[in-house]
């Protein structure tokens, strides 16, 4: 059953869109990533113009993330103080990111920049996470293994503005989450995503947050970042497709709930290893697309200029 999307100006199958929304929602519930880094390329792949894909998936992430946060919050797995500290930097970062985006678009290389950023980020993060989680799994299997400290102490713990994040059992400088939020904000504006796939590993490895607290807290920040992106895209580029978003959302919110319940049954290390595999697969696909001779050398730009 096909449906016409008024902003994207194409017809697509309703169940394909519902299914896609559901699959992405499931992943976001399990891993605490918004799923934008998968949703956007998938939408482009099925024929949605890239600008519309980026803006509409940001809009869909708002809903999916809220439903994810609520589910995690019921289990007491959201650190609100940490979330809002991250957000402080995130909003400033996304403002800078939007400015950079406009600049790159004018030069005609925004798509290349997006692909390269994805390959680099996903490749490095995926490899790091895979290695670390495999080590953790191996350590647990060995009987009598000595449990390591919660996190290593280093230069970051010498920074000023020390704040206690009770839920995360951390006493660290507020500058750390703010700076992390800022960096993710820049990235998410350029890549048109929530930034969860950067945020989640950074929160685990850099801030040293307990794995259980991470998905809910990162989703909390994603709600606001995605809302910001949605509004800016709708206002400046008119690329948010309400019908497309509605369909993705219906699938997405349900998928997120199922994903959250599924995620709590998995152990932290297994969760991290699965996410690492997923991240590496997407990176490999994008790298392949960049280096293989394109099927068609020519593309018509959606907008003149």
């Amino acid at each position: 059953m096909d449906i016409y999307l008024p902003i994207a100006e194409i017809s697509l199958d309703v169940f394909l869109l519902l299914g896609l929304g559901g699959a992405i929602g499931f992943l976001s519930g399990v891993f605490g990533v918004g799923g934008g880094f998968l949703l956007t390329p998938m939408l482009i792949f099925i024929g949605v113009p890239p600008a519309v894909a980026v803006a509409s998936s940001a809009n869909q992430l708002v809903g999916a993330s809220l439903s994810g946060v609520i589910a995690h919050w019921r289990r007491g797995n959201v650190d609100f103080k940490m979330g809002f500290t991250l957000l402080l930097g995130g909003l400033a970062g996304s403002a800078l990111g939007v400015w950079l985006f406009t600049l790159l678009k004018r030069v005609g290389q925004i798509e290349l920049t997006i692909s390269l950023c994805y390959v680099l980020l996903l490749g490095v993060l995926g490899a790091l996470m895979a290695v670390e989680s495999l080590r953790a799994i191996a350590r647990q299997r060995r009987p009598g293994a000595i449990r390591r400290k919660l996190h290593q102490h280093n230069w970051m713990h010498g920074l000023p503005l020390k704040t206690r994040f009770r839920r995360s059992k951390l006493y660290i400088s507020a500058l750390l989450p703010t700076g992390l939020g800022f960096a993710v904000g820049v990235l998410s504006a350029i890549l048109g995503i929530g930034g969860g796939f950067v945020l989640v590993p950074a929160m685990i490895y850099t801030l040293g947050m307990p794995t259980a607290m991470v998905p809910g807290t990162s989703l909390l920040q994603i709600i606001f970042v995605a809302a910001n992106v949605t509004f800016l895209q709708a206002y400046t580029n008119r690329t948010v497709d309400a019908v497309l978003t509605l369909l993705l959302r219906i699938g997405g919110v349900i998928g997120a709930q199922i994903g959250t319940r599924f995620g709590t049954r998995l152990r932290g290390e297994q969760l991290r290893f699965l996410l690492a595999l997923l991240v590496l697969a997407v990176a490999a696909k994008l790298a392949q697309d960049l280096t293989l001779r394109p099927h068609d050398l020519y593309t018509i730009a959606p907008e003149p200029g």
Partner: protein
Amino acid sequence: MTRRSGRRGSNPLLVVLLLALVLVGGRARGDPIVADLTSHLIAIGSGFTGASVVLFGAIEGPGDVIAVVRGPARDMTIWRKGKVAGIWVNAESATFASVPSFYAVAASRPIDEILPRDTAALYRIGTGNLKVEAKPPTTPETARRFADALIKEQQQLGLFGANPLKISFLGDRLFRTTITVPANVPTGTYLVEVFLVRNRDVVGGQTTPLVVSKVGLDAAVSDFATRQAAAYGAIAVVTALVAGWLASLPFRGV
């Protein structure tokens, strides 16, 4: 609006219309060709998967008929990827002014059999005669290469007809053909030009408009998104939040 509002090909109404044309239109002197569409509006609703309208008419005396459908003209930029440091990037581009967003030709016989090449070029019949012009600073050689690519891309999108459609005659004077547009058809006012060809020359013609427009909810959404962009953005965010919250309700206490 029905899904294929324009498809009324086998409607007996058409026969009546054709007869009326013969009786009334055909008698009018100095009008060697008269033509009309079964519908002047292609309405894009929620279930839109493409549509078709029937072009029909009558000619005075012998001859062949060629029809050209042209969508609203717009500027188009086409990029060509090149390999830079091992990866494929957008390396070259050319911008063309006033390219028809849709283009299709229909003819009662192969065009090169009934019309000399230069006459076809004069009336811009056939994708080879579109005369798309590149904006500076494109060199003529590059422009030709990119123009070919542009036409090929548009053909792949189904927006430029690769081969002329068939115009069939019912008897000696009545003709008809079906114009089909895909789901990704651009909106706007189209022009349908009909030419009467006799002795390898165009001896008559007529132009009929065809409007492709969004209707109903789809039109409302796209209108609102354009005119009230800030409000649209805000509503998009709020509805997403409400939907997210609603979706979490059934799972309470699980």
